[in-house]
């Protein structure tokens, strides 16, 4: 499969799912061309609602639709969506309204638009709420299956999608399982737990590490909440060293979730790679290099950590 942005895969699969289930509706806040629901809106105009640049109202509207038996996908950039945390907290999470929250344009990978448009704290915020799972697919195939799962999921759920293209990391036989991490590359020396944008880079890093005599195991952690404790503990127990990699704030994201798990259950040396500052404008490749999220950066972090 060619590289494809997870937001684009989302837009495509939503059209198919919408044809099968008329309860599926979209709500947008003037970003439907970016969140890729515009095609759905064109195909099913009576089931697509654009409320203007008003994300709180959009999330509340979605909560009401969900409580009245519809299956609403509420879409915006991850930062604008989760920025309306209080509405998600009470109208969606506490009300147990089965809204499908879709945050796109996550991470420094969006590049030139700069920090104000980058979803960098969304995982941290939503991890604090009791009943909203967080799913971040790594490629087109996984995204399409994760979106289909979201339709079936009985409660609210958050899908974290990218603006940038993602290289395929799964073969056609792969089946996404909610709550499960999958081993993309088995290894003995270090476990690299990675999610979303940098997954492909971690696989490339593993090749570099192999030339240095380091055999890295790569786990794609698509479901960040609830964490696949079993798979992570199994891998960490085997390798004895864990590195987390994410295009998200280093605080509160995948790395923190893994640190909490290991700290309580099986203390294991851990290195977290992620964004430690505000983001900034720049070309996406340059930003990944600066924040240590490209293959070279990940490999260097692992080597430094192991030495």
């Amino acid at each position: 499969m060619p590289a494809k942005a997870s937001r684009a895969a989302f837009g495509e699969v939503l059209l198919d799912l919408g044809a099968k289930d008329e309860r599926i509706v979209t709500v947008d806040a003037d970003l439907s061309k970016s969140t890729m629901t515009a095609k759905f809106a064109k195909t099913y105009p009576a089931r697509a609602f654009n409320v203007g640049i008003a994300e709180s109202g959009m999330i509340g509207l979605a909560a009401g639709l969900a409580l009245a038996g519809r299956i609403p996908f509420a879409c915006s950039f991850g930062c604008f969506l989760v920025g309306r945390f209080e509405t998600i907290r009470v109208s969606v999470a506490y009300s147990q309204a089965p809204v499908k929250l879709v945050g796109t344009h996550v991470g420094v990978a969006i590049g030139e638009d700069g920090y104000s448009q980058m979803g960098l704290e969304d995982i941290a915020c939503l991890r604090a709420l009791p009943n909203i799972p967080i799913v971040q697919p790594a490629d087109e195939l996984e995204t399409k299956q994760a979106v289909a799962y979201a339709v079936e999921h009985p409660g609210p759920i958050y899908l974290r999608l990218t603006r940038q293209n993602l290289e395929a990391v799964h073969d056609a036989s792969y089946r996404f399982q909610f709550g499960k991490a999958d081993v993309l590359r088995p290894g003995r020396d270090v476990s690299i737990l990675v999610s979303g944008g940098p997954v492909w880079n971690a696989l490339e890093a593993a090749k570099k590490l192999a030339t240095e005599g380091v055999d890295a195991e790569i786990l794609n952690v698509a479901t960040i909440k609830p964490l696949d404790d079993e798979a992570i503990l199994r891998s960490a127990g085997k390798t004895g060293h864990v590195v987390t990699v994410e295009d998200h704030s280093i605080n509160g994201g995948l790395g923190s979730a893994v640190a909490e798990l290991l700290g309580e259950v099986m203390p294991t040396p851990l290195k977290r790679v992620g964004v430690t500052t505000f983001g900034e404008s720049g070309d996406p490749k340059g930003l990944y290099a600066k924040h240590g999220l490209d293959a070279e950066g990940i490999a260097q972090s692992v080597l430094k950590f192991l030495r």
Partner: protein
Amino acid sequence: MANPDIARLESVAREGRVQILRMLTHAGSGHPGGSLSAIDILTTLYFHRMRYDPKRPDWEDRDRFILSKGHCVPAQYFCMAKAGYFPMDRLTTLRKLGSPLQGHPDRTTVPGIEAATGSLGQGLSIAVGMALGLKLAGKNARVYCVVGDGEIQEGQIWESLMSAPGLGAPDHHVDNLCVILDGNGIQLDDFVAKVLDLEPVVDKLEAFRWPVLEIDGHDIAQIDKALDQAETIKGKPTFVVAHTVKGKGVSFMENEPEWHGKAPKPAEAVRAIREILGGTVPDWAASIIAELEALEKK
């Protein structure tokens, strides 16, 4: 809809006022002022207008009620108990550890509560979404949403006010939605006009393309007439501005900002209940008075 039995509804609202004071006194905290200003509206909705079945709280065709000003949930708890959703005795567990009757509405603990509210400004958006969802599902059910006047200072309210009148066009207009403003003129800190004046609120709503009706929110005939009228307005939701008195029915609470969020002491509650009942104390009320007098002695 048939003409309301005004005397009966007024009697239920009086009982509601007594039960609100009773439960807040037991709880030792809560919001009497706004509960008392909204009880006539809620009584009319629950005991004359809305179609629901307390034995089937998830009945798909039920009318929905969202109390966006969630802090006034004692008024709703009374209506729900009176309607048969749960026993009246449970009202005295309000706000206590382990009680389903949370300080603000929680739909997971009380079947029949439609959404969690109380973080102000959110209930209206949910109500709009429910109205739209019911239209999409081809249901005839209506959605009622009560907002507070202090509450509509929240920005999210105006987001939904902007979009709701045009939403669902051309086939799923949310004309099954009626929003009622409990305009009691007081918020936590002070009079609304002093904290952040909303006037001219009717002009603002009309500028946002809402049909607006203005009524006395303690006159059950007027409340009912407005809700009747709202059902005849097609193509748009309706906004009813109900002028109310905070603390209505208890002279020492009326129009006093300090009674926004303070529970009465048992002796104060007894005095208030006697005033509400105006001389004739039926047996059920006598036992509440005895219960509160015993609480005073503790």
